[in-house]
């Protein structure tokens, strides 16, 4: 419970319609895309301006109450998981595109603007916003900044950090700073670069200047079917070794294809692995690259290659790919997704090890991932009604991360560490490295109130074995709600 004075001050800051305190209503904010973890906040505030955000932060600081910023809540690592009895600062009402400056190839937006709306606003003018996480229809720019989001096309175009030029930033003590800006090369340390990807632990961005990119003249998309993921992985390595940089290279295995076909009906071939390769640029060049890619796929054992002949066909291929996580419900009651990264050259052996682990644990693993940059998304499928299955799934997923680390990779490529993987950080970084990161965090938030317990491991957090949220029998029966 928050004390009355703080509640009154928050209400003053954001108004009645920007304040949610009813125990039932705050449940909407109890988790993000990692639905297995839920914590009820004491209050949710929905500010409309930078000043309101700053006032909320100052109020929390003075009352020593932790606060967590939240966009659309699509994050998959529990980065927007509330702190018990803390405040959630929802930025979804700050959703204006403030400026479109074509001459300088930049737009200024509020953090609640969705990723896709940025591209929609500038596409008629011949531009787009390049980072495209699969959740782009709903995820917000503020969340993208917090997580340094990627997406399928970051293979060629880079991540959020490469496309953010400036931000208005509310510091963890409620002051307002300009980081970076519309003009490049601001003096001093690259605080903006530090903030992008810091998972909301250093402060809150309330306005963002984004770089937009000219739409390429042509785009070619090919879907190639292989009997095994190993063959498909081989094709990926060979494509890269020719010196071509495709806009995207995505892979789905048989299980993932089956799940997607259930809901999207995109007509993917029934095969062991499908590759989606997209090439863009001047039309003569992308069609030349396209034939090269098709030849490489065929030489690597592709049983079929299908080129999207129309924009609608391309959209359908992508619709299936981007629906992959959502469609898992068709083939499994529960799933747990990992986000490990491996060097591209290790694709074949790591995928084989995942298959072996899947057999050992008796749990199916669907693979759908950004093959071009070695960013795996193994979906560990399980049935939570089966005793011990959830725990086995977590254990298997943990072993997959260890495979990634052993291969010289990372525990997360784009979903973030959040609350989910904080305890894996010591497997990837030395105590000294984590201590330095902690010192940077202290430099921004000495009170440890700004999204505490995320991104970096804490003894309290990592001493306990994290468990998945499981509804109590009386919740399942609809007799009670968890508040």
């Amino acid at each position, binding site marked *: 419970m928050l004390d009355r004075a703080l509640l009154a001050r928050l209400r003053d800051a954001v108004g009645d319609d920007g304040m949610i305190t009813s125990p039932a209503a705050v449940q909407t904010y109890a988790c993000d895309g990692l639905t297995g973890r839920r914590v009820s906040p004491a209050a949710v505030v929905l500010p409309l301006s930078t000043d309101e955000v700053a006032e909320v932060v100052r109020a929390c600081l003075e009352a020593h109450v932790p606060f967590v910023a939240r966009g659309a809540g699509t994050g998959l690592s529990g980065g927007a998981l509330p702190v018990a009895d803390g405040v959630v600062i929802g930025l979804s009402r700050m959703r204006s595109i403030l400026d479109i400056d074509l001459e*300088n*190839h930049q737009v200024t937006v509020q953090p609640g603007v969705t990723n896709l709306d940025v591209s929609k606003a500038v596409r008629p003018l*011949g531009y787009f916003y390049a980072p495209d996480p699969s959740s782009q229809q709903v995820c917000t720019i503020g969340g993208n900044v917090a*997580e340094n989001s990627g997406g399928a096309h970051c293979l060629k175009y880079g991540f959020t950090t*490469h496309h953010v030029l400036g931000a208005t930033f509310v510091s963890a003590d409620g002051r307002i*700073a*300009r*980081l970076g*800006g*519309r*003009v*490049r*090369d*601001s*003096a*001093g*340390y*690259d605080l903006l670069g*530090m903030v*992008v*990807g*810091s998972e909301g632990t250093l402060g809150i961005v309330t306005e963002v200047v984004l770089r937009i990119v*000219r739409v390429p003249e042509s785009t070619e998309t090919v879907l190639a079917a292989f009997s095994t993921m190993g063959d498909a992985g081989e094709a990926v*390595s060979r494509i*890269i*070794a020719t*010196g071509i*940089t495709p806009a995207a290279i995505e892979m789905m295995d048989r299980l993932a294809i089956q799940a997607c076909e259930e809901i999207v009906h995109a007509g993917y071939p029934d095969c062991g692995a499908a590759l989606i390769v997209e090439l863009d*640029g*001047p039309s*003569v*060049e992308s069609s030349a690259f396209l034939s090269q890619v098709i030849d490489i796929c065929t030489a690597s054992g592709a049983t079929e290659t299908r080129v999207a002949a129309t924009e609608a066909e391309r959209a359908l291929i992508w619709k299936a790919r981007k629906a992959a996580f959502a469609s898992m419900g068709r083939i499994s009651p529960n799933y747990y997704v990992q986000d490990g*990264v*491996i*060097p*591209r*050259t290790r694709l074949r052996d790591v995928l084989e090890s995942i298959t072996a682990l899947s057999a050992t644990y008796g749990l199916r693993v669907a693979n759908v991932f950004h093959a071009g*940059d*070695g*960013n795996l998304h193994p979906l560990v499928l399980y049935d939570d009604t089966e005793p011990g299955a959830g725990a086995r799934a977590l254990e298997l997923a943990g072993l997959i991360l260890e495979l990634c680390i052993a291969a*010289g*990779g*990372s*525990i*997360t*490529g*784009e979903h973030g560490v959040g609350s989910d993987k904080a305890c894996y950080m010591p497997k*990837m970084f030395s105590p*000294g490295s*984590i*201590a*330095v*990161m902690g010192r*940077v*965090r*202290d*430099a*921004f938030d000495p009170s440890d109130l700004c999204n505490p317990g995320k*991104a*970096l491991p804490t003894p309290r957090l990592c001493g306990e074995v994290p468990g998945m949220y499981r509804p109590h029998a009386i919740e399942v029966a609809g007799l009670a709600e968890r508040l």
Partner: protein
Amino acid sequence: MASTAQELHLFTELVGAAQVRQADAADAVGGVVPSLVVSPGDEEEVASVLSAASARGLAVVARGGGTKIDWGSRPERCDVVLSTSRIAGIVDHEPADLVCVVRAGTTLSSLQETLASAAGFRQRLMLDPAQGAHATIGGVVATAASGPLRTRFGTPRDLVIGASFVLSDGTAGRSGGKVVKNVAGFDVAKLLVGSLGTLAVITEVAFRLHPMPAASRTVAFESRSVLDLCGFANRIGQLQVTPSVVDLHWPQGVVLVRFDSSELGATVQAERVTHELGGRALDADEESAMTATVAGSPWTGSGMVGAVAMLPSRAGEFLSSMSATCDAVALRPLLGTGEVRFAPEALDMVGSAVRSAGGRLVVRRGGATSAGEAEDDVALELMRSVKRQLDPARTLSPGRQVGGI
């Protein structure tokens, strides 16, 4: 402060007599002459040198090739120059992954040579800062230096995927890794890029690499009107083409646009530019002749050199007022960044012209060098806070960063 003899003894114990020497005037940093030059051989020795210096209140300035040692404000103190010359070599390079890990004292040119000769898959680190031949990886990263390739590939900030470093208290840390896509942990390397050596000594850097392009085509557009040059460059930004380089050179009066791609891709893009906007595609001989006329500009020649940044849309306004005042300008018009050379007495005029175009000027050479001005008090306070956390004793290059950090 201890006497030089005591310091000499101290550091000799740590790294060996051959790796410590008395400094001379040529070792001066921004005019401040240090006592000693110490050359540790690895991360562990860097840590012991830094801990020992911190414990005695000695100020340390890290130095690579020394090509940009004057960047930043004059240090408040400089007792020890820590040379990274022995911390050199490529640690890891898997060509098929387009990634390399390299020690900080390696020269950029030797790295590029190795990468260009990767069997079967020639590649490159897409950084081409001025004085690149002797510049080291650590120095390029600490100064965030870039060159013409910035238009397409960005600065070190965009290509560094991991870094190992040592804080002044001897703590060794690493951030990032050796995969391009990675969001695990704080990206501390972002703070080190452009830190001017004030936060940590960088010992190793992991980079994203790019394939060596199969072909290049350059289009030159010449004019004696800076507005025509800027107009041409801005229209390039509106075409559906992807140039690696778009550089405006004055007084040469030329915009050079280079396409690095497949033979076909480079050719069609160059043709599109000449067809739609004018200019002419250069053949190989013309290209090398043209490259020679702008090589090293604006650094060659005497005078002050400053880095400028402004909105691309206001570059024309700045250049119109400056073309007579500056001796040389090399501008990336699509980014609004570049460098200008001018006589010392023109400093105020150049500064006010940049400001009136909404931009900023940071002097890089010729006295009055600085790290620029912080434009936001809260941001500056956060920077000070970062410095206090990572280098509380102010051992590393004190006073070189903005606001006297």
